C-alpha cells in the first residue's frame, strides 16, 4: 500500500528529560502511535488523542498537541473536507466515525435558561424538604375510576397497564455488548440496578451473567434480532423496538466479525467471527400497522407484563411519526436527536441527517398534547444530554426521562476520541480485545456511573428547589419556567418558550 500523504491531526511530544523509559505509554497505546527503540518514538499519524498514554505516564512526560501544521485557510474547503477527500481517494471507502455529531450546529440547550423563585414565592431547600424525582414510565389512562366498599372506603377500580419506576428520570443509552465490552455492559447494568434506573441492552442481547440485573434493563429488539429470544425478553422490565438511531437515521448497523468472540457470539446467537449486519429497516416493519403487530407480538410474548418502547431518530416529521407510534400501542417513545452517539456510523450521515433533539422533543410533546394522547405514552429524550442543566431543560420541554450514553461512557473513562468503530479503545470500553477490556474494572466503573447519577440527581433537586417545586411532575412539560436567549421567534415558538425578558 502506498504510504498515506495525509498529515497527522495530532502531535505527540515526549519530554526526554522527564521520560524514564518505563514503556507504560507504549504498552497503553493500541493505535500504534508510540513505538520504542532506545527511547519512546511517537508516530503522530496514528494518534487519536485518547489520552491513555498521558494518563498512564508516571512522570507526566507526554503532551498531545493539535498539529500546528498550517493549511492555506479556506472558509469553504476546510481542512476536514480536504482530509476527507484525501482519505477517500486513498481508500475508496465511506468515512467512518464514532460518537455523536461533532459539527458546530446550534445547540438549543445552550440558548435556554431556567427560572428561579425570588420574593413572590419561596424557593425550597432540598436539604430540608423532600424533593421527589420518582418517575413512572409507561402508558397512563385518561382518567381514574374508583369504587367504594360498603364502609365507604374507596379503592382503585381502573387497572393500569405496567409502568416501570425510575428513582430518578434518567436511563442509560442503548449500547450493545459487542459494540462495548462485557465489563462496560456489566458496569452499566449494575449501576442502573443499584441506582434504581434502567440500562439498555442495545441490539446485542444480554449476557447470561447479567440476567441478575435484568429487572433494571430495557431489552432491545432491533432489525438484526440479535440475541432476541423469549427468555431474554422476559429478563428485562421494558422491551424496546429500535427503529432508528440519532447518529445514523435510516441506515443499519455493522459489527465487524473481529468483534464477535465467543461471548459475543453466544449472546448474539451468531457464529464466532461472522459480521453482525443489522438491516436498515426491520424487514417485518414496512408501515405503521406492521409496527403495531410487532408491538403486540412482543406484548403477547411477555404476557402484557412489560411496557414496550419504540425508539426512533429525530427526523423532519417526528411529531407525526411519534403520534403514529403511540397510536400503534407503544407505551414509551424514545426519540434520539441528531447529536446522539454511535459506535460506528458513516461520518456523512452522522453529521448531516436528522434534527436536534430539542426541536423534536418539543414538537412531539406538543403534538401528542394536541391530539389528547400525551398520557398514553412516556417520552424519553436522547441525543447529547451533557449535564444536569440539559436534563432539566429536556424535562421542562416535556420529556419524562432522558437518555445518557456518551456521558456514561465518559464517566467510565472515555475521552471522546471518536474512534469507537476501530475496536481498539484504549480505555477498554469500545473493544473486545481481552488485553484492552481488562483495563476497565467493572467495580470501579459501576461506582463512577453511580456517582454521576447521584451528582446529577443532587443538582436536579437543587434546581427543583430554586424553581419552588418539590416534585418532578411540576417541572415536566413546564416550559413556562424556561426562557430563550438568542433564538429567533420561530425557534422559540417551536420550543414553546418565551424570550428572556418576556
Amino acid at each position, binding site marked *: 500500500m502506498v504510504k498515506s500523504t495525509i498529515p497527522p491531526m495530532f502531535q505527540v511530544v515526549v519530554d526526554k528529560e522527564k521520560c524514564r523509559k518505563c514503556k507504560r505509554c507504549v504498552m497503553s497505546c493500541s493505535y500504534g502511535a508510540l513505538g520504542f527503540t532506545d527511547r519512546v518514538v511517537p508516530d503522530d499519524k496514528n494518534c487519536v488523542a485518547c489520552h491513555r498514554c498521558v494518563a498512564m505516564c508516571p512522570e507526566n512526560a507526554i503532551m498531545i498537541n493539535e498539529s500546528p501544521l498550517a493549511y492555506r485557510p479556506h472558509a469553504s474547503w476546510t481542512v476536514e473536507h480536504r482530509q476527507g477527500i484525501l482519505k477517500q481517494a486513498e481508500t475508496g471507502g465511506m468515512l467512518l466515525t464514532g460518537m455523536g455529531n461533532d459539527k458546530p450546529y446550534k445547540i438549543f440547550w445552550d440558548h435556554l435558561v431556567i427560572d428561579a*423563585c425570588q420574593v*413572590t*414565592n*419561596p424557593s*425550597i431547600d432540598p436539604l430540608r*424538604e*423532600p424533593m*421527589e424525582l*420518582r418517575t*413512572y414510565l409507561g402508558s*397512563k*389512562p385518561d*382518567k*381514574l*375510576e*374508583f369504587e*367504594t366498599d360498603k364502609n365507604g*372506603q*374507596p*379503592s*382503585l377500580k*381502573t387497572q*393500569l397497564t405496567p*409502568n416501570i419506576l425510575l428513582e430518578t428520570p434518567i436511563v442509560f443509552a442503548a449500547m450493545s455488548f459487542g459494540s462495548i465490552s462485557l465489563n462496560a455492559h456489566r458496569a452499566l447494568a449494575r449501576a442502573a440496578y443499584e441506582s434504581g434506573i434502567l440500562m439498555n441492552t442495545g441490539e446485542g442481547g444480554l449476557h447470561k451473567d447479567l440476567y441478575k440485573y435484568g429487572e433494571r434493563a430495557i431489552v432491545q429488539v432491533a432489525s438484526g434480532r440479535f440475541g432476541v429470544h423469549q427468555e431474554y425478553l422476559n429478563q428485562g422490565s421494558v422491551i424496546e423496538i429500535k427503529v432508528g438511531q440519532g447518529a445514523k437515521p435510516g441506515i443499519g448497523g455493522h459489527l465487524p466479525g473481529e468483534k464477535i468472540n465467543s461471548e459475543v457470539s453466544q449472546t448474539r446467537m451468531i457464529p464466532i467471527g461472522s459480521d453482525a449486519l443489522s438491516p436498515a429497516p426491520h424487514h417485518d416493519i414496512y408501515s405503521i400497522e406492521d409496527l403495531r403487530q410487532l408491538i403486540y407480538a412482543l406484548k403477547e410474548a411477555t404476557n402484557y407484563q412489560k411496557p414496550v418502547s419504540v425508539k426512533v431518530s429525530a427526523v423532519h416529521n417526528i411529531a407525526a411519526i411519534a403520534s403514529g407510534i403511540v397510536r400503534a400501542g407503544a407505551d414509551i417513545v424514545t426519540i434520539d436527536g441528531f447529536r446522539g452517539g454511535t459506535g460506528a456510523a458513516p461520518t456523512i450521515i452522522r453529521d448531516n441527517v436528522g434534527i436536534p433533539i430539542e426541536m423534536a422533543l418539543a414538537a412531539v410533546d406538543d403534538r401528542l*398534547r394536541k391530539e*389528547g394522547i*400525551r*398520557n398514553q405514552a412516556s417520552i424519553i429524550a436522547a441525543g447529547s444530554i451533557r449535564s444536569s442543566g440539559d436534563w432539566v431543560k429536556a424535562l*421542562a420541554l416535556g420529556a419524562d426521562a432522558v437518555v445518557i450514553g456518551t456521558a456514561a461512557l465518559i464517566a467510565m473513562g472515555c475521552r471522546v476520541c471518536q474512534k469507537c468503530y476501530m475496536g481498539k479503545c484504549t480505555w477498554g470500553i469500545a473493544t473486545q480485545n481481552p488485553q484492552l477490556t481488562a483495563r476497565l474494572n467493572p467495580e470501579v466503573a459501576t461506582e463512577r456511573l453511580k456517582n454521576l447519577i447521584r451528582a446529577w440527581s443532587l443538582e436536579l433537586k437543587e434546581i427543583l428547589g430554586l*424553581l*419552588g*417545586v*418539590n*416534585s418532578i*411532575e*411540576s*417541572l*415536566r*412539560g*413546564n*416550559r*413556562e*419556567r424556561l426562557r430563550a436567549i438568542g433564538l429567533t421567534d420561530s425557534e422559540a*415558538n417551536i420550543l*414553546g418558550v*418565551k424570550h428572556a425578558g*418576556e
Partner: protein
Amino acid sequence: MSWRYEKDISGCGLAGIINTRRELINGKVIMKSIALQHDRGNGLGGGFAAYGIYPDYKDHYAFHVMFEHEKCRHEFEHYLKINYQIDREELIPTRTHPKVPTHPILWRYFVTIKPDRPDLKEDEIGDQDFIVKTVMHVNLNIDGAYVFSSGKNMGVFKGVGYPEDIGEFFCLENYDAYIWTAHNRFPTNTPGWWGGAHPFALLEWTIVHNGEISSYGINKRYLEMFHYTCSLMTDTEVVAYLLDLLLRKHNLPRELALKALSASFWKDIDKMDKRERTMFTAIRQVYGSAALNGPFAILIGHNNGLIGINDRIKLRPLVAARKQDTYYLASEESSIREVCPEPERIWHPKAGEPVIIDLEKEVK
C-alpha cells in the same frame, strides 16, 4: 399562541365563612373580616363570592359579566340570545365610591339553556359542558367581555380596589348568603384589571387563592388537552378548571381529587396499606400534571360547601375556626376573631390536608 399569556404573581389575603344550616350571613360580616387584612393587599384587586343570594332564580344560571365597552356587551348578548332563554337581565347594582373611580360595565343575566340551541346540531354536550363552552368562548373570543361567574344561586363580585371598597361599591350589605369567600389581592406583575381579581369561577366553583402556582406551565398544558383554555392571564384559573375536570368530568371522589391537587409525598405513600398505596400511586402517576406545586392557600366555594386547602408543605397561612354551625377559614386568625371573637375551636390545618365543610342537606 396561547402560551404567551402572562402568569399572575401575587400574594394575598383570604377569608371564608359558611353556615352549614344555611342560615344567612349578611355581606357586612365578610367585608369586616377581610378588611382587617387590608395590609395583605395593595389595592389592585378585591372580590367576593356569595352562595344562596338568588333564591328567586335558584334554578337559573346566573351570569355575572363585565364589559369594557358597549360593543362587546351587544356581541355577548347576541350570543346569549341565540343559546339561552333570558329571564332577567340587569345592571349589577353599584354605588358611586370615591375609592373606585372607574369601573367596567357590569351586568347580570339569569338564564336557562335553550333546548333547541343551534350548536346541538353538531355537538351533543350536556348543559354544564355547554356553560363551560360559553365561558371559554366569551373570555377568549369576545374582546372586552369577561364572565365573572356562571353558577346557580351564586355570584362573584370583584374589581380593582381594596376588598372593603369593592364590597361597598357592589352594595354587598344588601346580600345575604350562607357561604361567603373574600379575597384581598397583592399582584406584583399584572396591571389592575377587573377580570384578574379573585374569585375565579366556573359553574358553581369559585376559587380565592393566596400564592403562586409554580407548576402553572404544566397545569395549563394539561388542561389544554381537555380543551380548557386559560385566558384570564392568571395562574388561579387553572385551579377552577382542574376542579371542574377532576370532579365533574372525571367524577373523582372529592377527597381524592383534592389529593391529586395537593399530592401526597412518596415517603408517605410508601408507608400506606396496599389499598391506599395502589390508589395514591395511581393518582400521582395519572394526575401528576394536575398537581399544584408552589406556595398556596386556596378557598374553594361550591353549592354544597366550602373547602380550604394548602400546598403540601404549607408555604402560605391558613387558619380554621368553628362556632356552632358556622365555620371560618382565613389567612390570619385575627381576621376570624374580628367577626367571631370567641370561636369554640380554632386550628391550623396541616399541610396538604384539606378542610372540607359541607352544608347540611337542604330540607325541602
